[in-house]
């Protein structure tokens, strides 16, 4: 009888105290602050590395000494990690910040097909005064490329209740002169993060 009383009391207490735990909740997150949930690359890393890379490009003589903003093309950032990360998101962020600075311009290589399609349509169907002129696209002088690589270390096999791992990332960005083929600018950004994950859960 005593055991049944204890069990019932425990369930009632769980019911009252666990209400919040069993309810779904949603709240906004400050993207500038907050903790990383895992040791792997996440949106905060992308934002931080993007801002640092762009700050460095903007201070380089490649842009500071140019009389007019150079025209660039993004040829892609290679994913050399062991996760399917969105590299286009990273390159888009870099491109957006550079365009907003007013010190670089970009051709829209991803939309070339759509551009040609629209130009072709206008040539056949739009009024002469509203048609865009064919053959006026800007040629890029520089190509922006890069790669994100990853190395992972794990704690050795031993008797333990959690496993530790360290993920190291290095982002390399380079700007290549399309005429000479030379890399006119390059930089690296790296970071490492450690995580301890439980081996046992419910």
């Amino acid at each position: 009888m005593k055991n049944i009383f204890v069990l019932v009391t425990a369930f009632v207490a769980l019911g009252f105290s666990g209400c919040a735990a069993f309810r779904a909740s949603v709240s906004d997150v400050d993207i500038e602050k907050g903790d990383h949930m895992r040791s792997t690359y996440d949106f905060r890393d992308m934002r931080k590395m993007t801002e640092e890379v762009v700050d460095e490009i903007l201070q380089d003589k490649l842009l500071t000494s140019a009389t007019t903003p150079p025209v660039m093309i993004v040829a892609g950032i290679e994913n050399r990690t062991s996760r399917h990360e969105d590299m286009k998101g990273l390159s888009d962020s870099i491109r957006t910040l550079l365009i907003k600075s007013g010190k670089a311009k970009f051709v829209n290589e991803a939309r070339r097909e759509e551009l040609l399609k629209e130009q072709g349509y206008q040539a056949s169907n739009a009024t002469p005064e509203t048609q865009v002129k064919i053959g006026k696209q800007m040629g890029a002088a520089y190509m922006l490329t890069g790669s994100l690589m990853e190395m992972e270390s794990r704690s050795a096999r031993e008797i333990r209740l959690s496993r530790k791992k360290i993920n190291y990332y290095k982002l390399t960005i380079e700007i290549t002169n399309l005429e000479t083929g030379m890399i006119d600018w390059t930089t690296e950004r790296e970071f490492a993060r450690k995580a301890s994950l439980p081996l046992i859960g419910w």
Partner: protein
Amino acid sequence: MHKLGAILRCCFALALMLCQSCATNGINAARANFHLGRFEAAEKSLAEAKVSDKDRVLFFMERGVVRQNAGMYKESAADFNAANLAIEELRTYSISKGAASWVANDQMLSFGGVPFERTLLHAFAAKSYLALGIWDGAAVEARLIDKSLDKEFRDDFPEDAYSRYMAGFCFEMVGDWSGAEFQYRKAAELAEKKGIYIDSKSGSVTLDKETTQDKKPNVQRGELICFVGYGNVPGGRDILANRWPATYSVHAEVYAGEKYLGRSFVLADTAELSFETEQKLAAMKALKTIARIAAKESIAGAIESRNQVLADLARLLLIGILEQPDCRRWETLPRFLSVARIPYSPSDGDLELRFVSIPGVAIKCINLPVQEFVRYNKRVAFARDIVAADGLDK
């Protein structure tokens, strides 16, 4: 009070039995349709299947293969990624499921695949990315193949040359020649035991060690790399019972009209991999099974002192019915995984795959569609012989 406790224990055992009995019916229906070549029906069965949380990995694996064979490469890649993420979550041991497995059987545990299945998961995902021309995605899967074959993750479980070769080819397609060479070399070490030779620099595959020719990767020569699967992996019960068709020599030959272009070489036999895996797991499983039966017997013994009938019922449920081996396996895998690497140019026209037995008799012919994307003058083609022809799978 004691009678009430005994009845509650029996009801609990009955509930456990009911919970685990129908978990994979939808998956079984899908497999049956898949093995008859009815991919749409297989996909529909999976869409309608009520799959429990513990069978999520299996569900994604099976659906990934079904979709891949139906040409739904983007969807199949998503399924394989979902399976991989679900497996990562399983690295944390679940106390609740572990406890249930000690009361009922190992089917209460979440299915996470055996080591070679976890490796092939990435090999199949790589195929989807190659078909989509997403070379970076294929290279990510290649790194995951390499990671899964690391001793730390694999222990002493068997590895296969096919996954290594797939990883090597994926590295080749992103221009990582040293990475490709490393994987080809690993594949060569495994394949040589079966009398197949792989050149670590060019990735060419032959039966003649002396003719592993190129000393460096040839990016100029047009090549077609065909990944061919045929036969069907034996089911979990057949593996446990040591019961599947013997190995026999059937290979696939590629023809452009009547012009012979080359042949495939079997780099992995999933029946062999399954059997070797089961052998390694046998001792661990036996110990746990003995301990579990002893625990169940002690439960029945505790009831027996109060009520003989209930004790007999408890024994029937706990030992007679609940004590079942965990036969869950990835059953839409092909039995034989082979690779053909042949010189090719689009002017060769439509290609045909002929399955040939030792005397050179063509058992079956199927079309070999070449994927549209090309890089470094290399193209890929995938073929899977689902419906067993005479001589295959028997």
